[in-house]
């Protein structure tokens, strides 16, 4: 009997010998990463032919200020998102107060608000000519003091309000993953609840918080809309100034590479902070911290703080947009193509979310399987697009696409005398490609963070049971990280529907989206008319964010939910 149990090896070996190449995954990951990295490399390669004249002009005039402003911006926004994001995450995970259940997901929603929209709304409300200051002057006389809103402070405020949800989402997930026992241990050692949070929970959640801040800062670096409206000159502003003012696209892309330098610094900083710690969770059962009930003024202060953030970041802009929609000159900007705009916007968002998550899975899984230098390097470069302004990426995308198109056409002309014209340039492919380059970091960070929590012995167990690398991914990893995939897809979706500059430059002929519509109107200062498409974008973004919020709800105590992922009950944040 014993012998008959032994399965026939030669049979399985035959399968192998007829089979596919063995180490396909790192190759696939490297290939995807290389393709995504190409436009970024195109941008960086501009440095090889520096526009010395422009640089020396910049050196004499603005460079110091630009660098200083950019550093000030990421420092301010970094501090802002850490304090607001982590603070709110702490509040909703550790305490019970009136409305906590609602705030828990309401606080994610500002993610759906494009920074340029909130930026403009705030300026319109709080600037000298806006209703707030006008009212104050009416009441207290013309000498009344009010901070200058179009300033560094204004930019940091706006960006903090739009970007803190990244940190909030990640920090909250990290807090929920922590065990009550860790906290109890700290309390038993004499730490107060706050001290325990500060000394134990924050350090444990640090990788998540740092990942959130990195995403937020990359987006802050690439932002042009807000800083331009507020007249705060950062490197991104200078890129456009040189490109559109000096008509020197070369110099502009050179300046864009400087943004990548900032990103690289952020990345190295993150690595240094993360140190050699690894964050697998091997133990199965985690009891998340039990929130403590707040009473009296403390409870109301907590509710007040959360309402303030939600009110300012979401309520106020939405109210103002609604008001403009109603009062806009000649009625709201509506025409019968609106359903088409919406459909196009949602289609682009959905397809790019799928593509970005798919590419992220390939890259992250490839990186997991192989620590090959080349694959890792391209993987890192491919993740830097998030810090580049959309137009710069668009230019980086156009160059290789046009190269392929013209090459193909020339080849066909020479061989058969037919012209293929432009196949990729100005097609949906180009636009989707640009989105992929720009937003891969968002999906990749999320997917990687989820994958890292699946212990390597899962891979080995599955492989020793006869599953190929691909099957391991399909049958083990993907089901385990489903929550993380969902988060990644939604974050990309929301980012894509908000995206304006790359869409503007690369969209296929006659393919208009809501963001393009907003540009159409705002470029001629018709902000009131742009309120309707802006509101629509916010609404379209809020729906999936709501879904995200729901699926990331607190896991019930005792329910299985460990670092290796759950049955979709508790999605894993990046």
């Amino acid at each position: 009997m014993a012998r008959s149990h032994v399965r026939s090896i030669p049979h399985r070996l035959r399968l192998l010998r007829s089979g596919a190449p063995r180490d396909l995954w790192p190759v696939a990951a490297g290939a995807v990463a290389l393709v995504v990295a190409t436009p970024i490399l195109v941008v960086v390669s501009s440095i090889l032919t520096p526009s010395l004249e422009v640089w020396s002009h910049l050196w004499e005039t603005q460079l110091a200020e630009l660098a200083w402003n950019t550093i000030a911006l990421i420092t301010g926004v970094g501090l802002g998102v850490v304090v607001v994001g982590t603070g709110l995450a702490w509040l909703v995970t550790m305490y019970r107060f009136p409305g906590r259940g609602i705030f828990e997901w309401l606080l994610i929603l500002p993610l759906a608000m494009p920074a340029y929209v909130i930026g403009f709304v705030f300026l319109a409300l709080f600037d000298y000519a806006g209703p707030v200051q006008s009212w104050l002057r009416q009441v207290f006389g013309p000498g009344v003091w009010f901070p200058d809103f179009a300033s560094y402070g204004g930019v940091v405020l706006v960006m903090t309000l739009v970007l803190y949800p990244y940190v909030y989402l990640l920090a909250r997930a990290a807090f929920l993953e922590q065990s009550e026992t860790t906290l109890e241990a700290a309390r038993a050692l004499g730490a107060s609840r706050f001290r325990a949070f500060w000394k134990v929970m924050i350090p444990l959640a640090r990788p998540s918080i740092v990942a959130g801040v990195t995403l937020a800062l990359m987006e802050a670096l690439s932002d042009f809309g807000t800083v331009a409206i507020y007249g705060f000159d950062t490197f991104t502003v200078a890129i456009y100034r040189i490109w559109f003012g000096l008509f020197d696209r070369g110099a502009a892309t050179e300046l864009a590479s400087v943004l990548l330098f900032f990103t690289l610094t952020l990345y190295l900083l993150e690595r240094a902070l993360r140190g050699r710690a690894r964050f697998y969770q091997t133990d199965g059962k985690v009891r998340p911290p039990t929130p403590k009930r707040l009473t009296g003024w403390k409870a109301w202060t907590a509710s007040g703080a959360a309402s303030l953030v939600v009110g300012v970041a979401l309520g106020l802009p939405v109210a103002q947009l609604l008001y403009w929609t109603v009062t806009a000159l000649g009625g709201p900007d509506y025409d019968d193509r609106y359903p088409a705009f919406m459909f196009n916007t949602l289609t682009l968002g959905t397809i790019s979310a799928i593509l970005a998550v798919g590419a992220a899975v390939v890259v992250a899984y490839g990186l997991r399987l192989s620590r090959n230098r080349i694959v890792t390097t391209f993987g890192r470069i491919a993740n830097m697009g998030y810090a580049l302004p959309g137009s710069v990426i668009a230019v980086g995308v156009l160059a290789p696409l046009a190269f392929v198109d013209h090459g193909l056409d020339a080849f066909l002309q020479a061989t058969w005398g037919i012209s293929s014209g432009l196949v990729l340039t100005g097609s949906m492919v180009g636009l989707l490609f640009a989105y992929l380059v720009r937003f891969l970091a968002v999906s990749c960070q999320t997917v990687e963070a989820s994958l890292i929590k699946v212990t390597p012995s899962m891979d080995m167990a599955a492989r020793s049971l006869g599953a190929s690398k691909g099957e391991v991914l399909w049958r083990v990893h993907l089901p385990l990280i489903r929550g993380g995939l969902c988060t990644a897809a939604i974050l990309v979706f929301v980012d894509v529907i908000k995206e304006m500059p790359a869409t503007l430059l690369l969209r296929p002929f006659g393919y208009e989206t809501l963001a393009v519509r907003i540009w159409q109107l705002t470029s001629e200062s018709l902000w009131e008319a742009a309120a309707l498409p802006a509101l629509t974008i916010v609404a379209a973004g809020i729906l999936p964010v709501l879904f995200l919020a729901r699926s990331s709800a607190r896991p019930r105590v005792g329910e299985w939910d460990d670092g290796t992922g759950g049955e979709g009950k508790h999605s894993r944040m990046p």
Partner: protein
Amino acid sequence: MRRPTSRIITVLALALTPILVQSIYTPEAREPGSVVVYTARIEKLIKPMFNAFTTKTGIKVTYFTAKAPELFERLRAEGPHTPADVLITVDAGNLWIADHAGYLQGFESPIIEKNIPAHLRAKDNAWVGLSVRARPIMYSTERVKPSALSTYEALGDSRWRGRLCLRTSRKVYTQSLVATMIKTLGEQQTEAVLRGWMKNQLRIFNSDTQILKAIAAGQCDVTIANTYYLARLQAKDPGFPVTVFWPNQNGRGVHVNISGAGVTKYATHRAEAIQLIEFLSSRAAQNLYADANYEYPANPAAEPDGLIAAWGSYKADSVDVAAAGALQAAAVKLMDRVGYK
């Protein structure tokens, strides 16, 4: 376990293919008897003219809107395969760049020569101005006496300390204004003028509309802005307390810019393209074109809108507007040097 994977991939592929195919092929762009326009002038301001053109000629117009530098990028990448036949953009500087970068081809048209004065056309016939946009001084009717105003240069006078607001130097309108000043006054003198403005604690805004509202609210008293922004505000609120002052009337005149059009170098529908531009220069279209945005028509036969006509006529700076393009970079650098952001 292979099957569910491949099934999902198949479904995805089936879902994506039509969208991709539809986006790759843009059949209408290649149709004979149609014309494709790349326009930096936004849809709202251009579509009525295209509709009128199609009604009159039966030629279909498709268009693609984006900022001028981005349209140039697209033209550059597309090269000889571009679907674009016509390029429409605002600002003479942009037209000059398009011409010099080789995106346009010259064309002769007696109709256009008749409709549009020579100084609003390119010397090499690469482009044609279609509307004129004046950028005069504007002031608060509540706090400024027009007698205190004279020229752009005089805004450096210390009486305007803390009262002068201007648009950001990132905007092409500001760049063209300074570029024409360099052309006329020379770089040194222009720098002196800019330094004068700066000395008055110049306050920078992101848009003309914002400045005009700031003047109404009392934050600033004088500015330089395009007339149509004021016209829009006055159309909404006739009592808006800001009005126009035509500067330099005893000298070179008010700074004017243009919006204009040209035929792209690789136009597939050259004849239709010329036909469209001819139509846009006609008196009927000119009224539409200019009035849609309260601009001054380029065709002298067309009348400006009543609202802007009420500000009276003015002497325009006759400097070659295209010169602005050549000097735009110099203007930007000059503003960088004096700290005009």
